[in-house]
């Protein structure tokens, strides 16, 4: 199970073990990081689960288009509902962007 470091909006960080097979959005939600609205529930229809991830990874085409909705877009931006966690995500660092 990957251990992922999450930095909240207030700058505090916490490492948590998330379940492989779940999406990062679900992992954040289930570990009490409640700053993400994730309004569409993870079906890639909004951009309210936007996070920064390091190491950076490539967003899908749909995701790329949706990320344009955020004023806080960076090179490391992803929609957390589009990342399905695997053991390889061990060590991932996730930061919650400022509110849009």
């Amino acid at each position, binding site marked *: 199970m990957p251990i992922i470091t999450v930095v909240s909006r207030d700058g505090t960080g916490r490492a948590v073990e998330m379940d492989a097979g779940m999406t990062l959005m*679900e992992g954040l939600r289930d570990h009490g990081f*409640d700053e993400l609205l994730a*309004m*569409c*529930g993870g*079906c890639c229809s*909004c951009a309210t689960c936007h996070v920064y991830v390091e190491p950076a990874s490539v967003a899908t085409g*749909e995701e790329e288009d949706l990320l*344009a*909705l955020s004023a806080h877009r960076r090179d490391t931006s992803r929609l957390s509902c589009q990342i399905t966690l695997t053991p390889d995500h061990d060590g991932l660092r996730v930061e919650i962007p400022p509110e849009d």
Partner: protein
Amino acid sequence: MHHDVLIVGAGHGGAQAAITLRQRGYAGSIAIVGAEPEPPYERPPLSKDYLSGAKPFERILIRPAAFWEGRGITVLPGRRVVAVDPAAHAVTTADGAVLGYGQLIWAAGGEARRLACAGGDLAGVHTVRTRADADRMRLELPAVEQVVVIGGGYVGLEAAAVLRAAGKRVVLLEQADRVLSRVAGTALSRFYEGEHRAQGVDIRLGARVEAILGDGRQATGVRLGDGTLIPAQMVVVGIGITPAVEPLLAAGAEGGDGVAVDAFCRTSLPDIRAIGDCAQHANAYAGGQRIRLESVQNANDMAITVAKALTGAAEPYHAVPWFWSNQYDLKLQTVGLSAGHDTAVLRGAPAARSFSIVYFRAGRVVALDCVNAIRDYTQGRALVEGGARCDPAVVADITVPLKDLAAAA
């Protein structure tokens, strides 16, 4: 029992109100009282991934069950509020309990409208509004060969798509002359009719349901006004909701279709706010008309409006409406409100299964429906927010990105 903030309704709005209050540092006691037995869960998957079985219930919980207690939010499930006493600042639940409040947030949503015709209460006749509804359908589905879906709105169409994917024969009845007539322009209706027919759904427009036929207990078919009989082992009714506001109206709140609220979601009763599907409000994106919006966006954004107001940072509600619907491999995204448009411009070719419809009213862009066209959706949002005036001929040109028009407007 007394709570500083009592939230009636455990849907998207109620849950988000509680979450945002705590995020903003609200320290008083908070309770959510919900009619259903479950903690807050997402409703949209009930006609999509939950109905199909693609997502188990745990994955559509808005938060894990333990979250609420961890945030000091009391969830009181399985209790329907039946009366409100604004003078005493208390509500009464169906089991006779009295809950006091300092501030009341009414987020009770609505009840699925049921068929008024004969046979509407037979076994095998379903609405799709609650988890229990979807569970009952899933339990019966293995024995079902043919389903009649009544209502060609989003819920009916989404259910039809799931049922076709599950290998059921599906007949969809719509009383208007097109599906989605309440929410979209004709071109979108015709596109979705074509897609569903290509998937094997037997869509019948202008169909008036006269009765659900049964064997005394179980539905066996549907009889139309013209005498047509359609056999079915399951009937799915998607004909809208009735806002759940009776206790508020009985207590003297202004309203009719829903409960009337101002820009801060305040009802006419003291210390009672209302949000989400049941809140009738003047919407800037509807030309200031008083409307109700049945959407996750509206529920969430009104919840945030109320949470801000209760934590000393009141801002009027002014969120741009957006909406989505997934059917088959089609991703529809809507921004703005197309009702009342006078011009609809097609951008792209429906035959390519990726296109948008841009709606204008009095020369200004008021809404977009985007099918498998996320870029138009994200770039078109600015046109709606700004009420952009653009040349329909340019809008129709897919070689011109909508963001260029937004910049020029």
